[in-house]
């Protein structure tokens, strides 16, 4: 059994650690390139959302390297993610790949079904060592997220442009390659030291922008064209609403702090959207309201074309923008997204925020 999985930001490193610690053979899909996107777009339905297409590209490239089993997340609606795997299986079948798909999702046919799926991956381990492996993968995701979070703040302030990204790629390789808690701890400390000694500019608080939207587009820098880095280099401090470990915590770990935060987000969204609309539509509204209340200089929503929950959120965001007088930029992306167009829009948005800030926020209100 040679296992592969789709890329989603740093989740793929955590997945790799999880599966390798279980003693399984892992085929990491090659990094996402334009070939991945065009393979995905060729074999996927035309109007499906971008993550689906990238997944298909990942699978095909991993199968070319000899993978034969896919581990994939699922769901029970109403977002399309819940039915991804069913169609992906048919597409791979029609392409002639004899792939087995293991879909991890809330069970429809009782808990035994889910346990059956997990135990096909954990043969030969007792429940304690499985728990230990899961905990390690979660810790790894968490520590990468902490590094990324710090980078989102300091990228706008670094004196020598590009140092941050060197640290980030080192962090991904050293922390991502750790397989025991001791190695992880050592790698983490080294990266933290390097971050702490990074030469920073002083004086003048940078602009602050909240990033909200669809989780895959937020987490995968190769697909969102490095949105967070671009903003960082434009001198903007980035606050992103979702991280891999938060997502895992929310779904798998009974953490009271996460529960409280989730409830706070839901309550913030309540006046604008009455109930959940699948995916992260409600969270997008809630986080936007919270960011606006925190006094962010702007909010950027990013979504793949035809994403249903985010379209609902996009339709509601103008009210949030008007009420809090905060500029909101919506970026809709698909496999044709061009870097120059994105850069121009971001520069214009940042310029607008900067002049608003200089003039006390009294100019350039939403629309007329």
């Amino acid at each position, binding site marked *: 059994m040679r296992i592969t999985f789709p890329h989603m930001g740093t989740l793929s490193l955590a997945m790799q650690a999880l599966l390798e610690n279980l003693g399984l053979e892992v085929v990491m899909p090659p990094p996402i390139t334009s070939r991945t996107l065009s393979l995905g777009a*060729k*074999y*996927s*339905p*035309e*109007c*499906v*959302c971008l993550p689906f297409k990238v997944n298909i590209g990942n699978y095909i490239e991993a199968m070319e390297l000899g993978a034969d089993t896919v581990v994939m997340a*699922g769901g*029970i*609606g*109403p*977002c*399309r993610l*819940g*039915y*991804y*795997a*069913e*169609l992906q*299986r*048919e*597409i791979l079948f*029609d*392409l*002639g790949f004899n792939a087995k798909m293991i*879909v991890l999702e809330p069970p*429809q046919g009782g808990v035994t079904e889910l346990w059956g799926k997990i135990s096909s991956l954990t043969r030969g381990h007792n429940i304690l060592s499985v728990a230990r492996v899961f905990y390690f993968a979660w810790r790894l995701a968490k520590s990468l997220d902490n590094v990324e979070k710090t980078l989102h703040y300091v990228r706008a302030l670094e004196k020598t442009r590009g140092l941050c990204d060197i640290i980030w790629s080192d962090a991904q390789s050293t922390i991502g390659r750790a397989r025991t808690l001791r190695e992880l701890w050592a790698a983490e400390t080294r990266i933290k030291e390097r971050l702490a000694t990074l030469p920073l500019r002083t004086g003048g608080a940078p602009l602050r922008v909240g990033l909200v939207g669809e989780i895959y587009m937020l987490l995968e820098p190769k697909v969102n064209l490095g949105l967070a880095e671009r903003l960082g280099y434009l001198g903007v401090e980035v606050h992103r609403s979702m991280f891999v470990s938060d997502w895992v915590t929310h779904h798998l770990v009974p953490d009271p702090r996460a529960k409280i935060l989730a409830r706070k987000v839901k309550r913030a969204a309540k006046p*604008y*959207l*009455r*109930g*959940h*609309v*699948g*995916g992260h*539509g409600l969270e997008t509204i809630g986080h936007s309201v919270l960011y606006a209340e925190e006094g962010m200089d702007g909010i950027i929503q990013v979504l793949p*074309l*035809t*994403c*249903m*929950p985010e*379209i*609902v*959120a*996009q*339709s*509601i965001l*103008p*009210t949030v*923008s*008007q009420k809090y007088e905060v500029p909101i930029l919506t970026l*809709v992306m698909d496999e044709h997204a061009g870097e120059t167009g994105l850069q121009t829009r971001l520069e214009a948005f940042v310029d607008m925020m900067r002049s608003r800030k200089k003039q006390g926020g009294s100019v350039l209100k*939403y*629309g007329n």
Partner: protein
Amino acid sequence: MVVVGVPRALLYYVYFPFWRRFFSELGVEVVLSAPTSEDFFIAGAKAVVDEVCAPVKIAMGHILSLAPHVDYVLVPRFVSVEPRTYICPKLMGLPDMIRHNGLKMPPLLAPDIDLSRGYLGLGQVLTETSRVLGKGWWECGRAFYRALPEVSKTRRQLMTGLTPEEAFHGTLRLHQPGRRLRIALLGHPYSIYDPLLSMNIIERLRSLDVDVVTAEMLPDEHIALGLARLQKKLFWTLSKMVLGAGLYFLHHDSEVEGIIVMSSFGCGLESLVGDMLERFARRQEFPMLHLTVDEHSAEAGLVTRLEAFVETVRGRTSHAHHLSPYGNAELGNASAP
């Protein structure tokens, strides 16, 4: 007397008789918007973000056209009409999308229809209608109870082969005698029955001497039979109808000779389900035509494709299925039409 406007769009094609009865029991006047026209489409598209699908843009046009004539416009928040199954994220957020899009909008009557956790979810419908219309809770409950049989009555009427418009407004269609070609037309009710969006596809097919069968014309058991072939339960009511009926026609029905799937551009559900059905149909060498429509659809193109498809299907029936439905297309390169 309070006047409530009902837009002739979205789930009007499923639940209109229910709402008509419900409001007449309450003594509320109902105004129905005119059949979809080009103007509705243009006005609606201006009032929503570009990314939403054509049916929602049309619905928006209907709502705007009703606004000057009524006190409230009925836009229910359809979450779910059966346990653990949903309608569609956009319909789940529709009233909020209308209220908060930054434009001036008419007041809405927007009850939550949520049966995902059982029938207790319906209490909100009564609370909301009694609050907005100023009627008593029990009065609303009685009207609701009396209107409920209309849902199954509509279902039975549609099973006789009528379209919703024919069934709701009592227009009779003369059945043509003799054995005619039967073709299934699958899609969300608000796509295939909307005269503008579907470009009257049902009438066009009938004028080509074709008997049209839609998913609404099948009994529930047949749809369940089709759905039983899936590995994972579908969690969208509208897609269950499309895919269930499609699989039923592919595997259990010998009368239907071809399938036409009509979806609107940007419809999230159909992007998955339509492609899935296309793959199943190809494996069976079953003729299937997938039409995607939006506000830019051109009639001439549609007519040509329909005529060609009907010719193919007719040719296959008279040549004992020796004609390939898909040319030499490789199965793997299925995505390009």
